[in-house]
Structure formats: structure tokens, C-alpha cells
């Protein structure tokens, strides 16, 4: 019986923690969804892409494949950078908003330590 009560107490604490970090959970969920969208986007639009289709008669096939691969990696890299930027920005905004609410600091530029 005690074990069941313990499990329920732990579950309650877990739910309370999740409710407390709702903003952070939302950010994690958005990052996760963007990861899935990114994979689909790369597969549908970037995967079948041909980098230099109009010049196909002037260059050997191996060269075209090489350039195409590099272009694909660059586009995927740019998507990852945008993804990381959004992630960083959203976490920073969440943090400084929460700090502002609790400590009453005007913005990110003000220093201080609570006591």
C-alpha cells in the first residue's frame, strides 16, 4: 500500500514539475517538431535537387554530383544553423522573461545577483 502511495506522490510531483516548466516544454516540443519538419523538407525539396542542371552537357557527371552534394550539405547546414538560432533565441527569451517577472529586472543588459 505504501508503495502505491509513494508512486502517486512521485507522479504528482512529476506533474507539478512539468506544469512549472510548461514554457520550457513548449520550446522543447517546438524544437522537436522543427527537427521533423526539417527532415521532411530536406528529403522532399533538397534530396532530389540537381545543383547545375542547365550546365549538364558541359561538365562530367562526377563533377556535377560532387557540386550537388556540397550544395545539399550547405543547405542542410543553413537549416541546422537556423534551427539552433531559433532554439537559442527562444530559450534566452524564456529565461530573461522569467527573470524579469521574478526579480523585476528591466532586461537582459542589467546585471545583478539576488539575495
Amino acid at each position, binding site marked *: 500500500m505504501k508503495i502505491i502511495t509513494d508512486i502517486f506522490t512521485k507522479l504528482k510531483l512529476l506533474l507539478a514539475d512539468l506544469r512549472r516548466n510548461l514554457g520550457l516544454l513548449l520550446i522543447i516540443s517546438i524544437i522537436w517538431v522543427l*527537427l*521533423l519538419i526539417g527532415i521532411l523538407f530536406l*528529403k522532399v525539396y533538397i*534530396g532530389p535537387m540537381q545543383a547545375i542542371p542547365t550546365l549538364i552537357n558541359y561538365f562530367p557527371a562526377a563533377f556535377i554530383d560532387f557540386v550537388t552534394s556540397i550544395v545539399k550539405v550547405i543547405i542542410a547546414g543553413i537549416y541546422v544553423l537556423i534551427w539552433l538560432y531559433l*532554439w537559442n533565441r527562444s530559450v534566452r527569451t524564456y529565461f530573461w522573461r522569467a527573470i524579469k517577472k521574478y526579480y523585476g529586472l528591466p532586461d537582459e543588459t542589467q546585471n545583478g545577483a*539576488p*539575495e
Partner: protein
Amino acid sequence: MEPIWICFWAVILIIVSIVLMRIIQPWLIKELRAKGKIGIDVHKLDKPEVAEMGGISILIVACTVAVLPIIFTDLVIVRIQIIVFMGVVGIAGIIGLIDDLYGLGSKMKPLLVAGASIPLLIANFVYLNQIFYPWPDFPLVGQGFNIDYLYWILVPIGIAMAANAVNMIDVVNGSMSGPCVIIFGVLLICSLLKQPVSEVGVLLSAIMFGVMLIFYKYNRFPAKVFSGDVGSLAIGAALGAIAIMGGLEVVTIVVAMPLIINAFQILASVRGFVEGKKHKSRPSIVKSDGTIAASTDNKAPLTLMRIIMAKKPLKEPEIARNFTSLTIFCGVLAIITLILTDYIKFTL
């Protein structure tokens, strides 16, 4: 091996890991204390002394128990994969041990840990892509991308990132061990759900799950032992190796998101690898009532602990519990990711 036998051996490995850890950990704590290997628990008002480098037990038990599946498994490749796992974890652990004893630079450490992937790369070269598969499965699209050359470059980066991410989350009692129990538990479930079942993933996750469960018992608030870099780097390398050899790359990224957020935000806020002790400003402040508050200094590194405490100061066990709660949430997302990878595929 039949899935039912894989499950049976997973249970056996968990039990053996738990029993061995339960024997070794208390003995190791006594030995470390006797040899003066102690650290100060800075997040408590009375600053107690706690045994350091307790992660040696993780290294010993993980590598010892991993010998068992080498004996009972009937697949040569799985045997090689387990030997490679022992090599990767062993090298990362030894690097951590050197760091604990002599101190390595903040830039040198990730580079050396990346070197722990050498057994993985050599074995895969010798066994022609049978140790890990450089065409990973992605959610919704399956094996949608041909990234074999890029994957070889990503292996050392992945091992170094995983090891350092685990190392960086080890800030308060139970903040690393708690989430790691969840992570290895989720990897165990995902290895079983994977199509076909990832035998090496199941066996190695089971070992690490058992090991971390008992380590958490000693590392949670109030901690009797700290893992030290020897433990955290070994755990991180184990995580990376399981993800790569078990074909669980995307799932591991999703379940380890709290660790990745922590590492990424620290690197972004201090702009590079800086040793924790060299930060100009601390991310947290221990208040007179024993709670820990987030620093509002914009020069302080933006750690996950600081983000969680932004709303109000928290007690140490509450912080660790929040880390674990976030990891459980990410674990659910990781299982959905695996279902989207292996069970639901769009024909594009």
C-alpha cells in the same frame, strides 16, 4: 537471438549490474575517502565533504558485465560491437581519470574524448560497415539520406558531444545520474521496439541502466559520492556508442535534449569551451535559507539549472527532480520519434 531471449538476457544483465554496483560502490566510497579523494559539495550551506571520482565503479562494472553478452551471444558482429563499446567507454573513462587527477584543458578534453571513437571507426572499417550503419534511419522518411562519408566524420564529434554534454549536466546531486537512468531506460525500450530489434542496443542499454540505477542511489541528494569526469565522460561515451551502434541516433538526440540544451546554451553564452572554474560569474547563488537562486548577471553561463530556477529559487533536490521530469518528457518524444521512424513512413 530471438526477441524473447534478448529480453531475458537484458533482465539478467540489469540484475548483474545492480548486484555488482551494489557491492563495489560502497566499498569504493570508503576507499576514496581513505585516500583523501574528496570534494566539497558547494550547493549546501554546511559545505560537506563528498567522495569524488566515484564514477570509477561505473567504468569497472560496465566493462565487466559487458563480458557476459560476449559469452552468450551467437552473433560475431554483436561480440565485436560489445568489445568496441568496452574500448570506447574505457578510453573515455581513462581520459576522465587523467582529468580528475591532473586536469586537462577545457579545449583539450573534447578533442581527446573524440579520440575514444577510434575503436569504433577502426572496427567499422575492418568489418565493412557492420559495426555501425552509416545510413541512419530518420523519422518519417526512413533511410532518406545518403550521408555515409559525413557519418564517419560525425562519429567522433557525436562521441565527444555526448561525453561532454553528460559531463556538463553534472552540477547538483543527482542532476546527471537521474536523467541518465531515464535516458538508458528509454534507449532500452526503443532498442526493443526497433524494427528489427537492436540486439546490441538492448544488451548495452540494459547494462548501463542497471549501473546508473545504483549510481543514482548514491549520487542523489544528499550525495555520498560524485561521479567525477571519469564517470561522466564514460557514461557520455557509452551513450554515444549505444546510439551509433544501435542505430538510435535521432532517438538519442531527442531523449538527451535537456543535456543538449544545457551544453548548447553554456557554449552559446560563454562563446566556446571554458573550464567551469574559470567562468567570471557563477550561474547560481546559494541563499541563506539553503535554496539556490539563478544569477541575474548576463555574463554568467546560461545553464539548464539557471533556466529552471529563473521563476523562483529552488532546493537542490527540486532542481535534480526538474531535470529528471524534463528527461521523462523528452523520453516520451523519443519513443514517438522511434514510432515515426520504424512504424510510420511516408512514401515520398
